[in-house]
């Protein structure tokens, strides 16, 4: 088991003929991901590295039975690509593209409510289940298969922490980079729920950062609903306070968006919170040893 992507994943790459699309398609193929199709409007009938390219998602799905998509199309067209993926039955969609307008994402996020699908991102590194499927731009070499789930708002910080685990011989079930944008398809809680339901995942590492209050909401969920132990890490204690115009933000969130507030909420919920990336490795080791 793993979550979101595994041996059953049949991937379609939206924007396969672009610079990023080509580069990462090559890397995902190298890590044995089943890439069954690519989509680039106007390039139908071509192929890239043996992967057939279609003009539309409709054709791609009909011809190949794809069930998962990864999106590399430019920011101006990303929302459209997500709507297309949703309308043709994708169960999991990873939007890697950075810089998608927030109003576009609000429309996407509300459409998502009526669809039985999971959108990861945008502005995220994707999802990887080591040795099963790689739907990401993450460096596969630092991962080993195992029983720790990772969910993170950050990219390189995730790699750093995964590396800490791998060096200690601790493998990962699935690593999910949910993205750091203000509006994302899937928040911590939905991923935590999936890890909680995954028999293979024995411990979850949650990596947060300043901004919003997703960590607080997650802390509440972990405390009330989760049996799988969670270790957290928050970055941004010394980050400069963002200058904010107007009062609306303060009226709504108070001081919730600081690293301090997040880490206090996590500790209060009884979640082990590391003060630096190495300590994450130590806390996970303790939990796994204690359980076995």
């Amino acid at each position, binding site marked *: 088991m793993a979550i979101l992507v595994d041996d059953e994943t049949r991937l379609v790459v939206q924007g396969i003929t672009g610079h990023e699309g080509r580069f990462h398609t090559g*890397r995902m193929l190298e890590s044995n991901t089943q890439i069954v199709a690519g989509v680039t409007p106007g390039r139908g009938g071509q192929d890239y590295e043996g992967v057939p390219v279609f003009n539309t998602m409709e054709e791609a799905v009909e011809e190949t039975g794809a069930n998962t998509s990864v999106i590399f199309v430019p*920011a*101006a067209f990303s929302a459209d690509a997500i709507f297309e993926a949703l309308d043709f039955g994708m169960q999991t969609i990873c939007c890697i593209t950075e*810089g*998608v*307008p*927030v*109003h576009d*994402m*609000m*429309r996407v*996020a*509300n*459409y998502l409510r009526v669809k039985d699908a999971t959108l990861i991102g945008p502005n995220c590194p994707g999802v990887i289940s080591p040795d099963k499927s790689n739907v990401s*731009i*993450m*460096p596969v070499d*630092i991962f080993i298969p195992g029983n720790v789930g990772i969910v*993170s*708002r*950050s*990219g*390189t*910080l995730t*790699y*750093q922490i995964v*590396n800490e685990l791998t060096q200690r011989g601790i493998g990962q079930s699935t690593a999910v980079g949910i993205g*750091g944008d*203000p*509006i994302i398809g899937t928040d911590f809680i939905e991923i935590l729920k999936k890890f909680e339901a995954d028999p293979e995942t024995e411990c979850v590492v949650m*990596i947060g*950062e*300043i*901004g*919003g*209050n*997703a960590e607080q*909401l997650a802390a509440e969920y972990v405390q009330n609903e989760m049996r799988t132990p969670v270790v957290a*890490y928050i*970055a*941004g*204690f*010394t*980050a*400069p306070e963002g*200058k*904010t*115009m*107007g*009062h*609306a*933000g*303060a*009226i*709504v969130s108070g001081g919730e968006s600081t*690293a301090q507030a997040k880490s206090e909420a996590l500790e209060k919920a009884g979640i082990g919170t590391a*003060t*630096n*990336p*190495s300590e994450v490795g130590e806390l996970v080791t303790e939990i796994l040893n204690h359980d076995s």
Partner: protein
Amino acid sequence: MDLYEYQGKELLRQYGIETLEGIVAASPEEARAAAEKLGGPVAVKAQVLTGGRGKAGGIKVAEEPEDVAEAARQILGMEIRGHKVRRVLVEAGAEIESEMYLSIMVDRAAKKSLILFSTEGGIDIEEVAEQNPDAIVRIYIDPLLGLLPYEVRELTFAAGLEGDIAKGVGKTLNNLYEAFVEGDASLVEINPLVSTKDGHVLALDAKVTVDNSSLFRHEDIAELHDVDVADPEEQRALEAGLQYVKLDGDVGILGNGAGLVMSTLDVVAQAGGEPANFCDVGGGANAEKIATALDIVASNQQVKSVLFNIFGGITRGDEVARGLLAALDRSDTDLPIVVRLDGTNADEGRRILAENTPENVYTEQTMLDAAKKAVELVQDGGR
């Protein structure tokens, strides 16, 4: 991107929201001319991209053109929360009957637009929110449906508005929602929104933040970006595709990826140091980009040592090491630099560094050791 009040009002007027007549002035003489043109008492308002200008003395009311010029002289050049005042808005007066608050923002958690409205507007709105939360009406809007007529009624009834004011507020809200969506704003705030004795509803102030990611489809707004107020180094970084924020400490920090750099700042602080900046060089190992980043970080005279924290991912450690050496070659900084390299092919990268590094470069294996070393170097005097 934040807009100045006069720019925000221009946007609101395009969507049919009423404002007072106003003229932007960059000198006391221009302010005097503006006052003569407008006639009667006017308000002279500092144009800064921050709140709290009223309390800081950045708004003055005057009637005679001579007094208006004097008010502008006092306000221009003033510093408000670190923002220098370069322009004032000279605005006609109005007979105000009541002050209200109206804003629309993107609510991250709800993933919807959130409208806030209160009949108790003015500078103390945050206090109202804290002490009397019921005085603020909140309505979430589904972006797929847009603002529905019943939602507008819900707001005006909940706020106890009647007659012309209810109509005026309703119309303003519809217009503001349109401006918010079509302008790709993450925040539009009118505080105060006023009703006048002759029955008008006017925006007396405007705070507009436009989503940076949307600027590709708003060339007119993108052009308003004020390069004069940006920190010159931050501006240079922006042009080089780097994320750089200047801070107050003495340990210069570079790394790849925002999360990792933030984490590095934290670890330096834990080691007893004070970060001098945040600098994300992004992915890849482009020597020129790294050299530019190093120069920007080193140009801050407070910096005594530099910590470069890199995690090799897709760009392998050996490539990063070569890029870094090429960058050091181009950069002429003599600051002590601690390099911490980890990730894919990190051993090979560290070997390359160890064999070729100049005297001022130290390599460390872990983030914690690297942070300690960088702090030690500051204590030893740095440069």
